[in-house]
């Protein structure tokens, strides 16, 4: 959910919200369109062109980077149509039902990281095994692992990943008497997110008026849990959220934030969060690669040259997607070829240059060029270096089918109750536990 929402917010909050009402209607209209166009595919234009459809949520950057046009030029017999559904919570149920009905799916379907395990575990037979067609070694191992079934079938090709860093306001850190050098900071909190939180306590002692250290407690939780080698499920697929060491450490760090005054108590991707960037209400935030562009956009000119990026305390991932080819498609061969091409290192590098989605293919890292104004905005921080170092060291993390609802329960129920309603950490934990039991049907 988080990934998609950050994407949709690139289009602006309004579009994201409006998508629910108008988007649903538009989506319906599109559906009938899809169904009928399937029959006329062969005949349309009379040139025997194959129309490939690709279903995505939010901005994937393929269109923006001109990849569709490029591919159509290379393959004159192919034309590509992208069907965008802005919200994943609308997109994914739709894909699930169509996969199972065996009709109405696009030729390529994007799968968000929060849904990939559900797809791997319950829909594997509805997706083409892509493992034989590609050189798997071009992707990060942990990225491949997420889309691979127990019997070795690869159902999705990795698109982007979300390696984590810390984005911070140099000017505010300075006023609060903290070091501002990114290498020094990285050294200060290296190894553990709780050290980053400790620095927050120090920040609050001399904090510039009206500013807080972080945007929210769940931001810290999310960053910390994203790098744990185990969170809600263990390797064998058992639910271990209440015993997981990773969850416990992340929860404790978040609780330190929630029960102190260092949090601006914002909810990520709310309009008020956007305002927080613009007004400089908080001095730092755990930021995955894709958030860099978001910060630049929301902070605007006032933040230019004041933001900087330092390596995160521990490697961690937030977000990323996959492209899968449903077996129901009539153009299986063509769809696989397109998916393969779109996720190849060269194309991922092009998307990065345009959209700042960080490649999941390490061989692309050497060639990455962030946009010049973005680099300048973040005080010339070596963005590619920081994020690729992080991406390579992220531990493989077993995910589970209900990963996202469990994550929502902890962030949006447990942590929020403590942070915004003043409940005790124990009460927050119990509330989250009750919610998770409901999610798991226990």
């Amino acid at each position, binding site marked *: 959910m988080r990934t998609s929402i950050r994407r949709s917010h690139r289009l602006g909050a309004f579009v994201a919200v409006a998508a629910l009402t108008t988007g649903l209607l538009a989506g319906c209209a599109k559906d009938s369109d899809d169904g009928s166009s399937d029959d006329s595919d062969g005949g349309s234009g009379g040139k025997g062109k194959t129309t490939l459809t690709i279903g995505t949520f939010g901005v994937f950057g393929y269109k923006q980077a001109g990849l569709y046009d490029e591919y159509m030029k290379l393959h004159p017999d192919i034309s590509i149509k992208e069907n965008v559904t802005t919200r994943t919570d609308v997109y994914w149920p739709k894909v*699930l039902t169509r996969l199972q009905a065996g009709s109405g799916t696009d030729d390529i379907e994007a799968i968000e990281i929060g849904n990939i395990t559900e797809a791997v575990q319950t829909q594997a037979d509805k997706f083409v095994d892509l493992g034989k067609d590609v050189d798997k070694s071009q992707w990060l191992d942990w990225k491949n692992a997420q889309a691979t079934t127990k019997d070795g079938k690869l159902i999705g090709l990795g698109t982007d990943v979300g390696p984590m860093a810390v984005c911070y306001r140099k000017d505010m850190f300075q006023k609060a008497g903290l070091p501002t050098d990114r290498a020094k900071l990285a050294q200060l909190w290296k190894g553990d997110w709780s050290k980053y939180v400790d620095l927050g306590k120090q920040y609050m002692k001399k904090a510039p008026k009206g500013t807080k250290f972080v945007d929210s407690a769940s931001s810290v939780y999310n960053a910390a849990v994203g790098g744990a080698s185990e969170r809600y499920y263990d390797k064998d697929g058992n639910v271990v959220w209440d015993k997981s060491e990773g969850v416990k450490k992340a929860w404790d760090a978040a609780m330190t934030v929630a029960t102190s005054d260092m949090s601006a108590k914002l909810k990520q991707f709310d*309009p008020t969060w956007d305002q927080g960037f613009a007004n400089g209400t908080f001095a730092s935030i755990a930021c995955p690669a894709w958030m860099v562009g978001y910060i630049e956009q929301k902070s605007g000119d006032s933040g230019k040259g004041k933001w900087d990026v330092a390596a995160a305390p521990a490697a961690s991932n937030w977000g990323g997607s996959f492209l899968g080819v449903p077996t129901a498609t009539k153009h299986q061969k063509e769809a696989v070829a397109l998916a393969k091409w779109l996720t190849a290192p060269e194309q991922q590098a092009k998307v990065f240059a345009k959209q700042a989605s960080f490649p999941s293919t390490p061989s692309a890292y050497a060639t990455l060029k962030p946009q010049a104004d973005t680099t300048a905005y973040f005080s010339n921080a070596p963005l590619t270096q920081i994020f690729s170092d992080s991406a390579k060291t992220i531990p493989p993390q077993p995910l589970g089918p209900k990963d996202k609802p469990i994550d929502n329960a902890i*962030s949006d*129920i447990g942590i*929020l*109750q403590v942070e915004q309603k003043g409940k005790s950490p124990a009460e927050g934990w119990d*509330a989250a536990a009750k919610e998770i039991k*409901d999610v798991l049907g226990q």
Partner: protein
Amino acid sequence: MTSPDEALAHSASSADAAPGTPPGAARGAHGRGAPAGADSWRSRLYRWDMKASPYVFVAPFFVLFGAFTLVPLLYTAWYSLHNVQLSALDHQTWAGLDNYQHLLSSDFFWNALENTFTIGLISTVPQLMAAVWLAHLLNYRLRGSTVWRVVMLTPYATSVAAATLVFTLLYSWDGGMVNWVLHFFGAGPVNWRESDWGSQFAVSSIVIWRWTGYNALIYLAAMQAIPTDLYESAAIDGANRWQQFRHVTIPQLRPTILFTVVVSTIGATQLFGEPLLFGGVSGSKGGSEHQYQTLGLYMYDQGWIIGNLGKASAIAWSMFLILLLVAAVNLLLTRRLRKSQ
């Protein structure tokens, strides 16, 4: 076959017939006095047309109703008796009344029911009262009355999404305009989204804002149908404006008020868009303590976020049953009122 024009003409003329008398009997083939024989097939066709055409005309609605309401309704009922996961639609296992049993023992369900009720109450009652009052004002001779009426309807024409987005900004606890005004009057900031009453009040205010004008126009239409001599005689009896309003307008409006109460109650039971969007990113939870999670939200959360379609269907059917109950209570009340008149 009968041309559409002819058929229209027939149905129009049949409308002239006294209600209750079958049109065919009143002016069937006999009425025409046509001789039997060569023309008899025509007259038979004509009679058949008279009987069948009305059904053909009403059929589209019922076909659509069947396809998009009845079938889904029954299918939902079937789902609600099964254990169905969104990710495994083919693997339904019979669950009997388990889903309903889970609901009855689930705190989340009762909480959602309670929220739906309270939010419905605090949005419907002030809304209808304000609507009557507004309609009463608009009923006076006003300069540019059309403008006022159009303006009244604009909130209704606004999309839920746009309205909710604006209200969410107004109610944001850090820098929102509502809190700024409160601060102006010396009151502390309220965390509108996370406080129990605050959030319910905020959601209700969006509903009230959107629907008051709509209801006011319905009342206004009804008020204009009230004969003026009633007011005149009331005025001669010495009744002031307020007394006229109480003793003439309100009793005359009674059927209209009942209608709007029913419609608003149904709307309140199905309340979904406003709280969902008010909640922002994880709107389907209805706040960290589910403080404004309505039945609609709970159903959405169970079905599309958690993926438990069986349970979501059970919630849908519970909502349906609740609506039937509401309708029944309403019917009883209406009968009472009629008798007392």
